[in-house]
């Protein structure tokens, strides 16, 4: 479980996050949603301290991450897997080396065991024959899948995904969503996904936090997001033509 308390962040005069609090539960897919520029990715990066928040606290299973010392933070970070928007694969390493990187750096195990683990996760994300390919040879969807494989190779307790569907076609998006949901269940991770894709929201949104201009406006699940009673949430949800058609059909 991850808990955030009163996270605020400004860049110069622009306040990007205003006192955001919430709980992200273990074994569930937690979504942070909202329109572009509302501070979703900033909030995600504040949670893992890739961006230092101005105020607020973050707890990983009741361990105070914000006020931990450097060594404690490193220990917690080693339990984190993260998928970045563009995959963030190392250009100079092939798929196999990219996925093995966290094991090479952090795990103490024989090389054969590492290789088995790499093959296992590549198989899990459906990339069993791509071991020797370089990142430049991969499609957008494949890069995301390699990114997911790298994020889960160390069996993380916490999985963070920043816009996993951006730039992907609808079919690949659904595959990636299903993969994230299945991995969350299989590894019992606390998963946080930042997205603005309504297909993802309706597909995997166990727990949803809606951000609007730096404020948390609503929290719920995919079952009640269509009747939240909050205008900004409705505007966001029903901006999608398919969702709009569904609403008309229901009424």
């Amino acid at each position, binding site marked *: 479980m991850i808990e955030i308390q009163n996270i605020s962040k400004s860049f110069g005069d622009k306040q990007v996050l205003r006192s955001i609090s919430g709980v992200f539960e273990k074994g569930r897919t937690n979504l942070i949603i909202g329109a572009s520029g509302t501070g979703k990715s900033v909030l995600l990066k504040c949670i893992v301290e890739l961006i230092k928040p101005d105020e607020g606290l973050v707890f990983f299973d009741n361990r105070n991450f914000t006020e931990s010392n450097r060594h404690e933070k490193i220990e917690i970070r080693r339990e984190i897997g993260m998928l970045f928007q563009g995959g963030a694969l190392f250009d100079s390493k092939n798929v196999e080396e990219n996925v093995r990187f966290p094991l090479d750096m952090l795990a103490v195990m024989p090389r054969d065991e590492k290789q088995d683990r790499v093959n296992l996760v590549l198989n899990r994300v459906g990339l069993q024959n791509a071991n020797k390919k370089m990142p430049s040879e991969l499609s957008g969807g494949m890069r995301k899948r390699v990114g997911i494989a*790298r994020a889960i190779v160390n069996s993380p307790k916490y999985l963070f995904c920043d816009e996993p569907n951006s730039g992907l076609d609808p079919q690949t998006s659904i595959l990636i969503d299903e993969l994230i949901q299945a991995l969350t269940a299989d590894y019992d991770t606390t998963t946080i996904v930042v997205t603005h894709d309504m297909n993802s929201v309706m597909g995997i949104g166990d727990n949803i936090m809606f951000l609007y201009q730096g404020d948390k406006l609503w929290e719920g699940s995919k079952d009640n997001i269509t009747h939240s009673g909050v205008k900004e949430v409705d505007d966001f949800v029903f901006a999608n033509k398919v969702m709009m058609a569904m609403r008309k059909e229901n009424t």
Partner: protein
Amino acid sequence: MGLLKEIGKYFIFLGRLFTNRESFKTHYKLVIDECLLIGIDSILLFVLVSTFIGAVSTVQTAFNLVAPYIPKYVISQVVREMTVLELAPTVMAIVYAGKVGSSMSGNLGTMRITEQIDAIEVMGINSINYLVLPKIIASLLMYPLLVVISGVCALTGGYLVGMITGILAPTEYVYGIRYLFNDFTITFALIKAITFGFLVASISSYKGYYTTGGALEVGMSSTKAVTTSVIAVLLADYVLAQLLLSPA
């Protein structure tokens, strides 16, 4: 104020090189890779540039020393002093900043904007130690080596042009090279090489590491890396000359 802040940030960056260190084995492999990138890939450029600089220095020195009472071996003596004290360590440092510094900065800048550095940090790995320290160690090892090669090539260039054009005979050239030779100049050149190798690698890495924005900013960081490195090299050149060569 901005300059002081920048200098402070640079020193904090240098301090982070040594915190949360990776194992020797990890660094060893990375340093070898960087040595190949920095050293081996730069040898041809250094050989070409320094050979021509040596050749041109010989011709121009001969052009200026026209008095009949000045012995011809003075030409190669002057070329030797210029090469060892300035051309090989300092002028080549400018070439080094242009080739290696811009490449280091571009590499780290690209890693920054494509979130590869964030990916390393989020795993609990000190990205500065992992990515930058091997570059600096490799530069400390390879730049002095390149300076030695450069010096040899410049003096050889001078020898060849002297022989081909008949400016001075090979025996005169070799005599001048050895005449009143002070071996401290070699030590001084190597001290400069180590200093400049460190400055170019650390400043270029710093500029690349803190790149923000997109592809345009990566290019701008590379340009800034080269200009700042060159300024730092020239400043350090003066300070070292004042400290180590000043008669007082």
